[in-house]
């Protein structure tokens, strides 16, 4: 059985957010919820200031606090290491969201894709309503609805349950890469089986010095970061007093 992991090469990542847009499309993610997200950091103070960009997603931790804490086992581990959520079992206690050290679990506070369900036209007699637009393209709640998501999870998760990244388990089970990996224009995301020493992820983890988010917590995240993007140069100097 493979153990899936992802490497994010921060030197290749240009911060274009294509991963986040691809994720929303692939998983029918509603407004206000981010399966794929980013942390932006600034270092220094003006005028000596830099901007850093770090993509984030569910870390599919080996020792996942969300799985341990879920009272109904709605949050569970698959054999391939993916941390999966079953909305049918979810009671909406939000403990996983409270417990996640990485801030990557979100709660459906409201009816998902509410805007698209609106049947009132923007301009009466001139434009169609969002609901009509959805109907016109035979969408389901949203015009860009992806029915493939339904293979392992409700296509759109209902109000009152949490949701998060699944490493696109509906794609990986068919031998496809997660859609954020597929969509990355600079190949900054590398996905594969960490148990296989010949996989790309294993090779890269051996080649660079990877780090993971909040490693000290012992959660064993399976999203690794390598390298860093910094084209700045400076004259060799020993400083001075």
């Amino acid at each position, binding site marked *: 059985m493979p153990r899936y992991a992802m490497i994010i090469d921060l030197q290749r990542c240009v911060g274009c957010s294509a991963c986040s847009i691809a994720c929303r499309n692939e998983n029918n993610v509603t407004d*206000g919820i*981010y399966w794929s*997200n*980013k*942390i*932006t950091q600034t270092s220094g103070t003006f005028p000596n200031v830099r901007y850093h960009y770090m993509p*984030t997603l569910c870390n599919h931790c080996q020792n996942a*606090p969300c799985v*341990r*804490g*879920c*009272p*109904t*086992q709605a949050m569970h581990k698959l054999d391939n290491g993916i941390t999966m959520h079953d909305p049918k*079992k979810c*009671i*909406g*206690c*939000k*403990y996983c*969201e*409270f*417990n*996640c*050290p*990485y*801030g*990557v679990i*979100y*709660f*459906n*506070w*409201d*009816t998902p894709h509410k805007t698209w369900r609106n049947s009132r036209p923007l301009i009466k007699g001139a434009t169609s309503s969002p609901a009509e637009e959805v109907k016109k393209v035979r969408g389901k709640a949203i015009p860009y609805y992806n029915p493939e998501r339904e293979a392992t999870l409700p296509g759109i998760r209902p*109000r*009152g349950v949490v949701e998060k990244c699944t490493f696109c388990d509906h794609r990986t089970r068919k031998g496809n890469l997660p859609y954020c990996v597929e969509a990355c224009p600079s190949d900054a995301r590398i996905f594969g089986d960490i148990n296989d020493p010949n996989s790309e992820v294993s090779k890269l983890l051996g080649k660079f010095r990877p780090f993971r*988010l*909040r490693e000290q*917590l*012992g*959660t064993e995240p399976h999203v690794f970061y390598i390298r860093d993007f910094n084209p700045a140069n400076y004259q060799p100097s020993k400083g001075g007093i």
Partner: protein
Amino acid sequence: MSQTKKSKGLYGMWLGLLGVAIIIGMVAAFRLFTEGHGLFNTNDVIIWSLPLGVYIFLALTSSGLTILASIPLVFEVKKYDTVAKRLVFLAIATLMGGFVSIGLELGNVFHMIYNFISPNFSSPIWWIGFIYSIELLTLVLKFWRMHVGDWHSRFSKVLGNISFFGALVAPLMIGAVFGLTESRVTYFGPVMSIYCLLLAFLSGIALSLFYDLMYARVTGKDVSEKKVEICNEFTRIFSYALGTVIVFTILKITIESATFVPEFLNYHKFKHAFGAWRIFHTEVIFGLFLPFVLMAIPSLRVSNTARMMAAALTLLGTLAMHMEILLAGQSRPVGPKAEHYPEFLSYFPSIWEWLVFLLAVAVMLLLYTLGERYLNLEEAPA
């Protein structure tokens, strides 16, 4: 107007008031079930809010009352027999109020039942649901046995022992919900469990004291010498409980304000929910220190008015302390959520959250009232 007529009128008005509160609360519950938690002033940073704080407060208070009831029922201190039945009933009614609050926090009553039947033994939330359900069941059975005059049969004793054990473990589990949260260092560790147990006992004894004094005042009944003695002893226990929680709270505040661990620095920047004077939160000053001072002054300690005031302040203080703990640990967005929210978030309950609070308290008070009326709560074994 005769005294009986006047008291009947007041009783009817009280029931009417509770009825109105319950109807308003039911309307709020219906809105919540149909429209979801968008009605709460919560978001993906402030995840748990007033309904959960109220649940924690009421559930812990119920545990405190059960622990108190165990003095006569488990440890067989006979002189407290006269208050045992009332304590068990108050524990049941208070826990019912708590269940109303958590039911609406979850947004679906069936979710509470599902939680019970789909165990995850590593989850403190599952254990809380399980233990409190068992506790409620055993308390109801114990009350029934007491009501039919069976106080000390083998079965009745087993029920008392189970509910006592549940009342000890459940607060530890509530603390563990926070104490096992690696992501929030300010909560992490066994301290939260011990703190919850202490707060449970404190709010339990405060409620018992307040209720007894209020009951005597409202009914105007003569209080027997035996009951006065019990009230004096409960006041002493209340003072000890206050002292213990004060020591623990000062220790907690000292660590929080002295440490340089980044996550604890939250406390330096976080705008306390109820305000603060230097490092001392308002609810600690008025909900712990002031009642302790009141109970430390000999002339006030024997005054029923001062006792009632101290108990009421403690109840409000412990509820506020639960809210403060709950909010302080959630005030800062975790990970990428900082992208969409400010560095620190503040919270004020929406009208719907207040109505959940109202419904929970109204259900609890209605049960108290009906129990007092029909269930002969002062009964004791011959």
